[in-house]
């Protein structure tokens, strides 16, 4: 085990200027995710959730503030292979088979793909796609593609996992299944996870803490601790305390 890897965002601000209008995408966003924790980021469309995630990965520059992943700036942390990511859109390369798509991060990181064959096969099994190793993305359904993206996010054995609405395009049933799977994967790997979502129940089911955002300007208004015991079972979705927490978050979301 390497040194514990958390996420520390401090004072992130970003302003877009488009067509003469200034849009304050982020204002003074500070968030600390302790090593091994699961944090959900929830908020209305356009509140800057995805911008936070992209900034954490160094995909988007910020005007002010600092990002540290395992104590390092994002460019260093990502190039060192500490991070894994899955976006809302699977973003698979249509000419690569499922296994070769999953291997992509290894190639970018300059790691040996050949020695990871077994691991890739295990990941394919983990996301329930056994038998589809050589299928092309065009032959898969939307849900299957999304699962490939999850497997791809895990292939580099990341210490920090970023998930940007990875189940946003899935139907409710599949989404529940994937939530249960994700909890299991997270427990097994122990990776610090930041999940961007707009599903309240998803956030409560999975996270240790839910950071609620509001738009104009994009900011975190409250961080709510989720004190539900783990492992969390599917039956939790109908437990009263679960709904209390959901209602509380909904209250903060609509609060003002």
């Amino acid at each position, binding site marked *: 085990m390497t040194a514990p890897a958390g996420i520390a965002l401090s004072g992130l601000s970003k302003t877009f200027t488009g067509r003469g209008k200034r849009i304050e995408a982020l204002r003074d966003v500070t968030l600390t995710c302790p090593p091994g924790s699961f944090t959900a980021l929830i908020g209305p469309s356009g509140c800057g959730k995805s911008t936070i995630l*992209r900034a954490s*990965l*160094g*995909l988007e520059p910020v005007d002010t503030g600092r990002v540290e992943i395992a104590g390092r700036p994002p*460019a260093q942390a*990502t*190039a*060192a*292979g500490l*991070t894994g*990511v899955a*976006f809302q*859109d*699977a*973003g*698979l*390369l*249509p*000419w690569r088979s499922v296994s070769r798509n999953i291997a*992509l*991060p290894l*190639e*970018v*990181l300059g790691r040996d793909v050949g020695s990871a064959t077994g691991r890739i096969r295990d990941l394919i099994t983990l996301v329930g796609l056994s038998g589809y190793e050589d299928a*092309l*993305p*065009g*032959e898969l359904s939307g849900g299957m593609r999304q699962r490939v993206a999850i497997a*791809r996010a895990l292939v*580099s054995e990341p210490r920090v996992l*970023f998930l940007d609405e990875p189940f946003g395009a899935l139907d409710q049933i599949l989404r529940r299944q994937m939530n249960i799977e994700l909890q299991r994967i997270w427990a097994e790997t122990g990776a610090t996870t930041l999940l961007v979502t707009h599903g309240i129940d998803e956030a409560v089911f999975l996270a240790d803490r839910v950071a609620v955002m509001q738009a104009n300007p994009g900011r975190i208004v409250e961080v709510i601790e989720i004190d539900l015991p783990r492992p969390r079972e599917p039956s939790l979705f109908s437990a009263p305390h679960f709904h209390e927490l959901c209602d509380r978050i909904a209250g903060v979301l609509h609060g003002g």
Partner: protein
Amino acid sequence: MAGDLRRWLPPVLLLLAWEVAGRLDLVASGALPALSEILSRLWQDRADYPAHVSATLAASGLGFVIGNALAVLAGLIFVLSPVTERLARGVNIAIFTLPPIAIAPILTLTLDGMTPRIVLAALGVYFVTMQATVTGLTQYDSRAADVVRAYGGGRGAVLRLVRVRGAVPAILSGFRVAAPNAVLGAILAEFGGGGRFGLGAYLLGSLGRGEPDRLWGIGLAATLIAGLSYAVFAVISRRMLGASLSLSLNPAGPEAEAGGRMSPLIGLGAVAMPFVLWWVILWVMRVPEMLGKTPWGVFDYLFLAEGAPVARERLLAALAETLPITLAGMAAGLAFAFGLAVAGRLTPTFTRVFLPVAIVTQTMPLVALTPLLVLLLGRGTAVTLWITISVTFFPAYVMIAQGIAQVPRAALELPRAYGASGWRELRLVTLPASLPWLFAAMRLTAPRALLGVMIAEWLATGRGLGNLLNQSRGYLDFGMIWTVAVVSVMLSVALYLAALWIERLVMTRKGIGAME
């Protein structure tokens, strides 16, 4: 079964009608022979063909390879360095618009043997493939690129892992469209050159003898070569792409790279570049001054030299003949194409039958078509007009019809869902949706219209710029050969830019970006 019948019936009927009309000499007193007559003549002439076909194939094949290699390389450079792309824009537009027939004489006078044919074939494929490469490399899936960048991948990694392979379908379709151009270029160079072998030389040699069945045979052979080259790449791209095509890519492409305004200096450089290149090529190849006119040489010939007023007068007279008919033919061809494509929305069966026919004509080399039209229509002005109309009509029709086909079903069905009639739906959705395609077609067919007119003038009517070029070639009037070449290229560029300007104007007013 019924579907098969419906698919095969129209072409079979067409062939049958052709056969009957040809056998009975119904069209222009025998100018259109029956297919069986053409084929039997082909069989009689079979000893002639191998030498001609292989000469044309060799030149167009070599030109195709060289031109495409340069085009892919240039596309890559333009994508990596936008400034270079801006600087080369003038050269690119000139290469795209230049009527090959205008520079064929220059090439045959300054280069030896097969080289002119190869150069013209390469020039014919360059722009199409270059553009396809740029498009393919620019419109990549931004999400996939994000994934690469999220693991610390830089521009190089994104290019290597996402963009290059992602551009392959676009480049292959570029090859497919470019292949018939290579054949056309090689044949046009054969017209201007003195070589014995090649389908163009064969065609030219047979033109005076008034044997329709042989001319049709040569035309058929040329079309077949061009069509086969198109088909070969169609098959290759289908094989290579297979299932990988069916995944819809992220339609929100990456942001337009570093748009911004062109600095005036770069704009000036883009205009100057073609002239500089012209000068440099002459200098590097050590073309004798008498043969190779520099930009200054052409200026001198037109404005300063002793015979300048006469030269100007002849040029203007030729222009006065060529320009009106080019514009009229283009306008008629475009109007016809637009009307037919839009009306096709109301009668989908018509589009289903006619579109494939129109697509096939795209592979028919213009030069092979011209003598046939001459046979059918005689040597008057009518033939020029018809050639111009046909070279603008078919590509424009294909483009607009395919453009309309891309309108999302939901958008088409929305007015219907509110009980709108076919006409109203046409006015509300189809017409506005097809307008951008009309303008794109106008821009892309303008150079072809001029080429069509010049070929007709050269081969048939003995008027205008085409004829002036052909005459000057006979008299070895190098000053005039260069002048006509330069003027026709500039005219072509001007037509293109005018079309682009109108397109921008209308589209901006309508709030739609012009399609590059």
